[in-house]
């Protein structure tokens, strides 16, 4: 079977099955966790719904979340619209309020769709900002840790700043900042991002401290590769696994934070709908119109749970030491 070529290397037969790439291996382990797989399904569905929702509520207006229909207020879910009381343009699609209407007769389904996009984009952009800051600061602290600026090392400088940021009660910091800034969805994304990077920075620093001593990093230096290339091309991909996990869970907490802010009235302002402010409006009518309260509550609960489950499963799939059996 085996034969020696002229260079003396054992040539292996060519019909071996192609070994799996690291990504395939992660997917294989991830797939075994049925709960996580279902959660991933939920998240993909949410993504589709959020994008479709953005399209049908703002670009090609099929249903307008801002249409006020005073005669139609507090209709329970699945009730049909009374066509004779409304203008043609104000009718919901198919003449049915899928999720009922609120105290102004607005279609809750349309408002939830609009809110899905807000929640998801806040989650992703805020986490994007926090991961970016975290990876850069953590990477600098880990890689250039021993370089000193005057009397203090870069590592000390960055990590003590991280500690200081961790000392703030984040939610109250966000509340203060949001109270001072004009309320807009962008400010909220930025503020959540700027106050949640500390965990990532610590992960990345710890990984970098270990990676910096690895032979392949020294080998990369011996090959004359520039420092930025070593950091971002060689070290970050090796350090990214815990960051990915914390980012997934971070999306969930960003969505929760946004909901809480909107619930308190500091978040995205009406008439623009988010899950948080639908919930806030609904709490006044919890006995008369419980769907106004439970629908956004359940949506937030499901999405946050799904992100957390996916994060946990990713943690297991990416870290061989945590895999069961």
């Amino acid at each position, binding site marked *: 079977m085996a034969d020696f070529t002229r260079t003396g290397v054992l040539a292996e037969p060519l019909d071996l099955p192609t070994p799996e790439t690291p990504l395939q291996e992660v997917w294989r382990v991830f797939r075994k966790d049925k709960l996580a797989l279902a959660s991933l399904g939920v998240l993909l569905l949410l993504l589709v719904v959020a994008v479709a929702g953005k399209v049908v509520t703002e670009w090609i207006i099929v249903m307008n979340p801002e249409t006020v229909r005073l005669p139609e207020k507090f209709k329970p879910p699945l009730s049909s619209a009374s066509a004779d009381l409304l203008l043609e343009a104000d009718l919901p699609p198919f003449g049915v309020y899928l999720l009922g209407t609120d105290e102004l007769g607005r279609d809750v389904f349309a408002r939830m769709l609009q809110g899905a996009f807000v929640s998801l984009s806040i989650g992703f952009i805020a986490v994007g900002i926090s991961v970016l800051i975290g990876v850069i600061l953590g990477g600098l602290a880990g890689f250039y840790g021993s370089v000193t600026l005057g009397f203090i090392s870069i590592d000390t400088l960055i990590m003590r700043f991280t500690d200081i940021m961790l000392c703030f009660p984040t939610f109250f910091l966000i509340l203060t900042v949001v109270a001072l800034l004009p309320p807009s969805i962008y400010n909220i994304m930025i503020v959540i991002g700027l106050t949640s990077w500390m965990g990532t920075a610590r992960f990345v620093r710890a990984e970098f401290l270990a990676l910096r001593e690895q032979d392949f990093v020294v080998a990369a230096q011996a090959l*004359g*590769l520039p420092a930025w290339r070593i950091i971002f091309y060689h070290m970050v991909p090796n350090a990214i696994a815990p960051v990915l996990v914390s980012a997934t869970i971070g999306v969930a907490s960003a969505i929760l934070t946004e909901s809480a802010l909107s619930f308190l009235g500091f978040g995205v302002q009406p008439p623009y709908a988010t899950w948080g402010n639908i919930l806030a409006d609904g709490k006044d009518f919890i006995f008369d119109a419980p769907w106004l309260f439970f629908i956004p509550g359940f949506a937030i609960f499901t999405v946050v749970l799904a992100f957390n489950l996916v994060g946990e499963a990713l943690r297991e799939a990416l870290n061989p030491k945590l895999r069961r059996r």
Partner: protein
Amino acid sequence: MPTLSGPLLTISDLRVSFFTDRGEAPAVRGVSLTIPAGQTVALVGESGCGKSTVALAITRLLSDPGRILGGQVVFKGRDLISLPEPALRAIRGKEIGMIFQEPMTSLNPVFTIGEQIAEVLYVHAGLSKRAARLEVLRLLEKVGIVPAARRIDQYPHELSGGMKQRVMIAMALACQPDLLIADEPTTALDVTVQAQILELLYALQQELHMAILLITHNLGVVAQFAQAVHVMYAGKIVEQADVHSLFQHPLHPYTRALLKALPRPGHRAERLAAIAGTVPTPFQYPPGCAFASRCPDVRGHCPTAEPPLTATDPSHKVACWLHERSVPP
């Protein structure tokens, strides 16, 4: 290949220390050596004698807490110790290649070997993706990784140790360096693979006319491969000679003890000769000869007076009072 007058690399009085919580540990205490173009120079010594530190110091790759305290490393007329970092980076990997002891961990686990070899070509030769891939295929064939077309897209964990070392060699030689620093290139490999790797290095050296600084503790490898040998002990060079005179007439008691510790065919001894005692700790080297505490021929002044490195004949130098004509102070 540019023709050069004089040696390719000259190290003079290189001194490196590690600054730890326990104090200063001098790892390299005034090492000088020269490497002529196209030749193989061996640096031998036991673990911890500072030979790998010399290798890393040549291209200033020492990481904290190691620091170069003095000396010169002149490579093609430029002093690498004082060269600014960007200029040095252009030399690393292009004019000076390096291979390490542990092929298992010297490759980045998240990229295919093809991507890693190609990276050197992007950075130093400015090749396009397509040109780099062709060149990588050629390099893989050259270092005996066949079939290259299949291996190029494999990850390091899919290759054996010997194959990984071949990949490291391909990376180090991608830009046809004038000097290859091989830091114990075969230590982590089993004996049959060692021989293959050495053969490969020898063949490539003949083809590319490069000089090799071979760092090893394996005297068998040295005898086979090197033209000149430097024996290092406790951060200093204690003996330097061409390979024949070193093996025929070892002068320093340490070199003799090392050669005596080798198993020899036909001589069936009960036990191999071991060198008594241990290497002194780098935190407290004696003021005189560091080998004095283990030396069978120790004289009264050895532990207190430092023997100079003096020539006994044109190609042989030794730092030992036994062979010194001048009298210790």
